[in-house]
């Protein structure tokens, strides 16, 4: 079956981020979206450790370990960017000032519940970071994930079985096989990857999909 690779998924998410948006990209896969935001489009990237106007990675040898992103990787600051403390940073999220955040996920339910912080396995050391604040704080929360696990199970589900990050907080899910809107009305197929039908997606996910 035809499927998007990670760069194609990132490019697809980037298409939906308009000029002027204040955006937080979660660590891991969503970070790739940065590479596909057109330079001529002014977008404000926020990193929850305390910067707005985040630029690309520095050239080798130019790293400043006091200028890092939420993934603790060295970054740069664009002209016009600024720094702030953690309470202000999370006020930007919780207060609804961030337009879009893009997060990875273990599971998303058709009504928009998100599970992305903890497998719930005994012995796992839990870590949550800013995931819960971002999920419920941003005006729109997008998820970017493979539709299926390596074992072939759907990550778009009727109800999450992993511990929740936030309730009814996700509005759109970008996957390697299609794009879905989720919410109170259930899941809706926005588009499919070439060669993938809506019926294919229904079979793979086992959930009710409007189209």
């Amino acid at each position: 079956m035809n499927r998007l690779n990670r760069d194609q998924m990132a490019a697809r998410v980037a298409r939906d981020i308009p000029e002027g948006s204040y955006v937080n990209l979660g660590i891991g896969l969503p970070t790739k979206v940065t590479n596909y935001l057109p330079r001529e489009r002014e977008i404000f990237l926020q990193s929850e450790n305390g910067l707005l106007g985040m630029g690309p990675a520095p050239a080798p040898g130019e790293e400043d370990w006091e200028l890092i992103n939420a993934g603790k990787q060295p970054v740069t600051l664009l002209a016009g960017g600024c720094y702030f403390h953690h309470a202000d940073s999370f006020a930007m999220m919780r207060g609804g000032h961030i337009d879009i955040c893009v997060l990875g996920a273990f599971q998303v339910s058709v009504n928009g519940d998100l599970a992305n912080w903890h497998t719930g396995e005994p012995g796992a050391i839990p870590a949550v970071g800013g995931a819960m604040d971002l999920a419920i704080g941003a005006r729109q929360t997008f998820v970017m994930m493979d539709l299926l696990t390596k074992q072939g199970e759907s990550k778009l589900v009727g109800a999450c079985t992993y511990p929740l990050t936030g309730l009814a907080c996700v509005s759109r899910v970008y996957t390697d096989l299609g794009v879905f809107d989720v919410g109170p009305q259930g899941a809706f197929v926005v588009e499919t990857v070439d060669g993938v039908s809506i019926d294919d997606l229904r079979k793979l996910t086992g959930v009710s999909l409007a189209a």
Partner: protein
Amino acid sequence: MIDKQAASAEAAVADIFDGAAVMIGGFGTAGMPDQLIDALIARGVGDLTIINNNAGNGETGLAALIREGRVRKVICSFPRQADSQHFDAAYRAGTIELELVPQGNLAARIQAAGAGIGAIFTPTGYGTLLAEGKEIREIDGRHYVLEYPIHADFALIKAHRGDRWGNLVYRKTARNFGPIMAMAARTAIAQVAEIVPLGALDPEAVVTPGIFIQRVVEIASAAVVAA
């Protein structure tokens, strides 16, 4: 004359006691006050409750404090990382307690303590494991979780420049928790790369007003010198 300068990192932490609650600034290693922590390790006190975003990275700073067995409890948002081996080992051995707090709630609870707020209702965490057993309030159609302030006996933070009254400016993303931890602790201790004369810091740009700082100690930082 009011002079909050301590002669050394050791002098700055000399009254930190067994069982103290200590906030430590930093997000990963950015803003981690390594020399104050080294002095705390050398002081030999233990049974500490540490409030930080993480639970130590690599072998320095908070990771070293945990490695030396001085920490009874960590209150943090993101303990598990590729280089958090000393926390991981202590956690699995059952020698360290973890209170996991969503990062924004951690910041808000610290800020509440510093601002004299009795508790906060936060939307973050509602409906999750981290809100289990906590009071929930519906306000204007949205659900909130009751969370209490986090106070501390001491805060150890790193800033860029300070003066003898304790006014501080920070450097880049090393600012992170410094300003709010300074407010929330009974005794806030700042290590700075440079102590400058009164009036040298632009009053419009002071981030932490000196009222929140009890001690400041100058420790030249290789990173800052290079920059």
